[in-house]
């Protein structure tokens, strides 16, 4: 009786150990996939990956420049080159201004933030900005929008 119990215990122990190690392996794999979903660390030739990112730099999908989120339009790449070296495109995308307003912002960056002279490109950049990010009339207080309705009880 005691011997049988011992055997059973040993067997159970081995099975548990087996399950545990499989679980650990799986956990490691899952954790790794989360960190590096493309398994890029196991790629052999970084040159291929580099070429792929090069293409990405100009990629436009559904009218949006994928790398920066800026709207596609005339002089887009001029804006990318001159306006996203220091700061993120996100600050452009969330702002709205008329021609004079965008010019003021550029001037402020030149006077205080080390932005270089834009030369002939300045007018093209301002045209892009005012075409794609013009001011919108908002009134004194907008209606609540984008309400995410949920049951509360």
């Amino acid at each position, binding site marked *: 009786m005691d011997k049988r119990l011992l055997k059973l215990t040993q067997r159970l122990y081995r099975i548990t150990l087996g399950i545990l190690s499989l679980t650990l392996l799986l956990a*490691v794999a899952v*954790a*790794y996939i989360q*960190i*590096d979903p493309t398994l*890029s*660390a196991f790629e052999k030739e*970084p040159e291929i*990956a*580099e070429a792929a*990112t*090069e293409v990405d730099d100009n990629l436009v999908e559904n009218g949006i420049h994928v790398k920066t989120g800026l709207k596609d339009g005339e002089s887009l790449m001029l804006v990318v080159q001159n306006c996203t070296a*220091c*700061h*993120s495109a*996100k*600050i452009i995308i*969330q*702002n*709205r*201004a008329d021609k004079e*307003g965008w010019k*003021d*912002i550029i001037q*402020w960056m030149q006077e*205080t*933030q*080390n*932005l270089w002279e834009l030369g002939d490109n300045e007018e093209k950049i301002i045209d892009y900005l005012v075409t794609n990010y013009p*001011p*919108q*009339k*908002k*009134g*004194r*207080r*907008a209606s*609540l929008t984008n*309400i*995410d*309705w*949920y*049951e*509360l*009880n």
Partner: protein
Amino acid sequence: MTNRRNFLKKGALASLSTILGAEIVFAKNIPDGMTPIIFQDDDFYTKFNKHKDMIVLNDRPWNAEAQAHLLDDTVTPASKMFVRNNGLIPENIDVSNWTLTIEGESAKQSKTYSLADLKRFPKHTYQLTLECGGNGRSEFNPPAKGNQWTIGAVSCATWSGVRLKDLLNDVGIKSDAVYIGYYGADKHLSGSPDKQAISRGMPIAKAMQDETLLAYQMNGEAIPLAHGHPLRLVAGGWPASVSGKWITRLVIRNQVHDGAKMGGQSYRVPCDTVEPGAKVSDDQMCIIESMPVKSLITYPKSGALLDQKTLDIRGHAWAGELKVKSVDYSIDFGATWKPCKIQDPVNRLAWQQWSARVTFPKKGYYEVWARATDEQGNMQPMVIPGWNPKGYLNNACHRIAVKVK
């Protein structure tokens, strides 16, 4: 590109070894001094341990805000605290060699302290409201330049450290002193070492208040990196830009401090009110000091669908240097108001908790509005307050949407 990619590879493997809690062979490829944080500039939530519902407005520099329902805690945890940066967050902070120098034309001497030196001064703890001067900017019309904050650039955490006045007195203040200026370890976006990202300050009177701290702890722990580790000024009730982060140097000035973002139009509003869209010259712009009265409905989250006709609501109210006297709510777009219960602040400059039980008369769409009144009788406006070129100080009452079925 290749470097960045390699970095990510090695980062992933290094992190994997952290998960395993053991060395792995690939880890030897990681160069010395490499930060063991992966997604160096990609994942805000992982990098700064932030709640998944925080909203990133900008990723260079990092700027992110909470939403009203995230701010329900009485003491704001780090995970739900807004992040406002003018420059690049410093890296590789060496706490053991960190020093703070206090000097300036109105200092009686120049003195340098280590963190250990600072910790020998009496330690004080206060819960302090910090709100970005531009919180609510997104609602101004015509639009104002800058990060388009909605309502979530406010926090009220517990800060511990040295009273600034204890340090200033230790150094000695000349009788002509009028202002304190700060310098931090953050870098200018352009990468230029000659430029400061931000270097603001406060009048001597604010610096000498009991609650103005040079803090080394937030919520009882070391200050998180995004919030100024290891040393931060905390000046509750004033635009949060006064509460400089990563502080290395303070200057006692005989004039209003003239560091970056002190002059021009930054953190200033027209000295006299102007019509929307007006151009205002720099010399007609005045520095913002105490923030205006404001409140938030932190429960329930906007968008509640109700089966019943009663609803418990709650939130916080604050009023810069002042105390909030009362909070009222309206469910009929401001036509009628009913009082809420309000608690005293835990200390001066901490936000106050309010609550009420709302009864809706019948089914339909409602907006619950909250309106705080400060001890001088100033109330939150229902529409957007005075337009100003940079879109500061929007304290219009907060609104949530509710439907009763």
